[in-house]
């Protein structure tokens, strides 16, 4: 087990270089530069342009810039945003809890709805229930997030007026940020009105962001269940005269969960990337919104640092998922 963990940890080193190199190369491949971004339609005196490029360290050859960046990162310094001149790590830390809150709810929503739906579709195979679940999940999977999000806003917020359009909380609540998780902060402040407001603001973004993982999870659960349900041990369990639900939940589902856990792990990456669109539309002050703006303004340190931190989180989550296999399936522990 220890060797397994160490081997997985060793993989992080090449991944780190790969990710930083990719992030660095991609953002520099996009045409334009941060200095141009400062000037808009106005012309810029060439001398001033050169001075600014020098100040930002952009007059150096690219490989040198990369090496300097890596050195900086290894010292734990992600640099400063070129637009706000605030530290990238600090900006990330301020905004990340909002993304965590949203991603957590989206994943919970996907699991709570997706797992039972997948089980139902497998058990009631080739019935209306099965077709309904699969049809809805295929539709959900194929729907562009930004379009789906706008539909949700137009229907639930504008037409029915039952959910707020965007933001994290109604403007009259000024909840002091302690954890950065709005629901927790509202509870800490003891303000139930704020808590309800924060909860109602979570509904639509959660649905918008959770839809694709939900579709993936329900389809994955269905196919894994179908496979397991055909296995001998399930037939044996049935033959023993165990209740039907016990066979399905305890014997079949537990074994079907192995591929599902993998998929859930992979969904975390998807949630973080999906958050970019969801957050932009719902004005959710998280890292997705922040990264988009960073790309638009060619804020190199923000984009590089943001991608690096997100990649770090995805790697960590996948490591945890790998370790979780061992819990779900003892055979892997010894492999």
């Amino acid at each position, binding site marked *: 087990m220890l060797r397994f963990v160490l081997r997985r940890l060793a993989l992080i080193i090449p991944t780190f270089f790969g990710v930083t190199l990719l992030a660095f190369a991609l953002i520099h491949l996009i045409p334009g530069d941060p200095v*141009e971004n400062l000037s808009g339609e106005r012309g810029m005196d060439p001398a001033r342009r050169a001075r600014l490029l020098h100040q930002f360290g952009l007059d150096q050859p690219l490989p040198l810039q990369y090496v300097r960046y890596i050195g900086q990162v290894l010292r734990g310094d992600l640099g400063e945003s070129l637009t706000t*001149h605030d530290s990238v790590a600090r900006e990330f830390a301020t905004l990340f809890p909002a993304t965590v809150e949203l991603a957590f709810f989206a994943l919970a929503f996907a699991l709570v709805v997706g797992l039972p739906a997948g089980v139902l579709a497998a058990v009631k195979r080739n019935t209306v229930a099965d077709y309904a679940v699969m049809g809805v999940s295929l539709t959900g999977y194929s729907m562009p997030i930004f379009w789906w999000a706008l539909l949700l*806003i137009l229907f639930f917020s504008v037409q029915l007026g039952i959910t707020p359009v965007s933001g994290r909380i109604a403007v009259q609540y000024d909840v002091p940020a302690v954890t950065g998780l709005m629901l927790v902060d509202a509870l800490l402040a003891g303000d139930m009105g704020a808590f309800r407001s924060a909860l109602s603001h979570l509904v639509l973004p959660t649905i918008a962001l959770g839809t694709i993982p939900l579709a993936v999870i329900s389809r994955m659960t269905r196919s894994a269940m179908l496979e397991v349900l055909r296995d001998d041990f399930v037939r044996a369990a049935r033959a023993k005269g165990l209740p039907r639900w016990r066979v399905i939940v305890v014997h079949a589902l537990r074994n079907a969960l192995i591929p599902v856990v993998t998929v859930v792990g992979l969904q975390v990456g998807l949630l973080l990337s999906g958050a970019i669109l969801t957050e932009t539309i*719902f004005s959710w*002050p998280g890292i997705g919104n922040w990264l988009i*703006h960073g790309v638009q303004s*060619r804020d190199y340190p923000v984009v590089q640092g943001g991608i690096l931190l997100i990649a770090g989180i995805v790697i960590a989550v996948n490591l945890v998922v790998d370790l979780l296999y061992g819990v779900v399936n003892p055979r892997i522990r010894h492999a």
Partner: protein
Amino acid sequence: MMKRFTKSRSAMALTFCAVAALAASQAAAKGTLVYCSEGSPEGFQPQFFTTGTTFDAVSVPMFNRLVEFEIGTTNIVPALAESWTVAPDGKAYTFKLRKGVKFHSNANFKPTRDFNADDVLFSWNRMADEHHPFHTMTAGQTFSYYDDMGMKNIVDRVDKIDDYTVRFVLKRSEAPFLADMAMDFASILSKEYFETMMKKGTPNAADVYPIGTGPFEFVSYQKDAIIRYKAFDKYWGGRPKIDNLVYAITRDATARYAKLKTGECQVMAFPKPADLDAMKQDPALALQQKEGLNIGYIAFNVEKKPFDDKRVRQALNYATNKEAILKAVYQGNGKVAKNPIPPILWGYNDAVQDYPYDPAKAKELLAQAGHPNGFDVDLWYLPVTRPYNPDGKRMAELIQADWAKVGVRAKLVTYEWAEYRKRAKGGEHQVVMFGWSGDNGDPDNFFVPLLGCEAVKGGGNNARWCNKAFEDLVIKAAQTPKQADRAKLYEQAQVIVHDEAPWIPIAHSVRFDALRKEVRGYKMDATAHHYFDKVDLAAP
């Protein structure tokens, strides 16, 4: 039994708290105006940044200038300066400062004195003097707008005559100077605040937590989410009518519109052109419009063949159907342009006769210039929506079709926006679509950065057109003190631009702000800022 009792009592207490909190929040919300803004400010300091988003969030609500623009016009009115005099040679401006102007306060700073000349000198010298203790305080920051406006070459020094009199001594006579002083970057900071923060060992805090003299005080900011302000009770211009001002940062224009409809905000910035019709018909909303201080144009690179020939440039002016563009691209929300400056600006020459749409005449001129069969050309079009041009691609397609009728085969080219600007400023284009929104309502602010000879170097002059007669006129106009005399010079300059045709001026667009009906007293600003100090909310 006892246990159950406690439980239900705590539940009751909780409910009571919630009800009380709800009631309190509703009471507080009465005088609160929520503005759906389009983005986060880059920071809370008026001298560092250049975007309208930042000015709307910083210099407009919280700061004042010596002189300011009257809301809705580009007329210059007294602000922190009550009056001013200009030396006969135009090389010195003396400002008499207003007395009794209070600065804001916050947890770390309580002002001990009113605004005076020291604050003016501090604010200016911080930008101008490289040896000023606060000049290079925040790493990597520059005084962009001060640099962009070339203030270094205009202002020699600022003298304190007495506590309430300052004199700006200029290096040359510069009539637009007063308009420059009304711009956001010339906002007045508190010297005492910066020095206090320096003493406390946190000098950077003064640039992060703003202290100004403006109508609203800073309360809090949550990045990318919300900015809160409260009315400044001691504001010299009279306390604002609303108690609280909230900026709900909402980047997506569709979401802003949805929030306006549901009443989550009362005013929204930058409605999408496609939504305007629906907004007009909504009884809960009011749509305000204002002629923009802007120009959308096509520039010919006169350094490249065949555009070094003025007959070719004139021919393509004749060949372009601007009326059709106004209808299709601007949906009628604008005015066809015939001059580089918009008609709302003083000095506009209405006597200039625009080139009519006349393909036959265009062909004739092309033939004279040696292109009877036309030529091939790259036409660069804007990749993004800009205030002066809602749809660059559509505009380019219309122009392409127009020019094809006279034999000019245009290939449509574009780049990502930052790259587009960089290449255009480097003069790589043959023909480029561009535009401009004025900073300060002085015609100088169009002619010099867009068509002046100096601006060829920096790339703001996309036509790369440098004309001695034109240049002499605009330089003379800048050095002439009286506005009426200046207007005459600019009128002549427009005749030259028209005849030399470095551009096809296309249109001046109209700007829109959408608000809810309960908002009273909102007035659109000429320089595209959003002011809320005179706004009131009617009971819904």
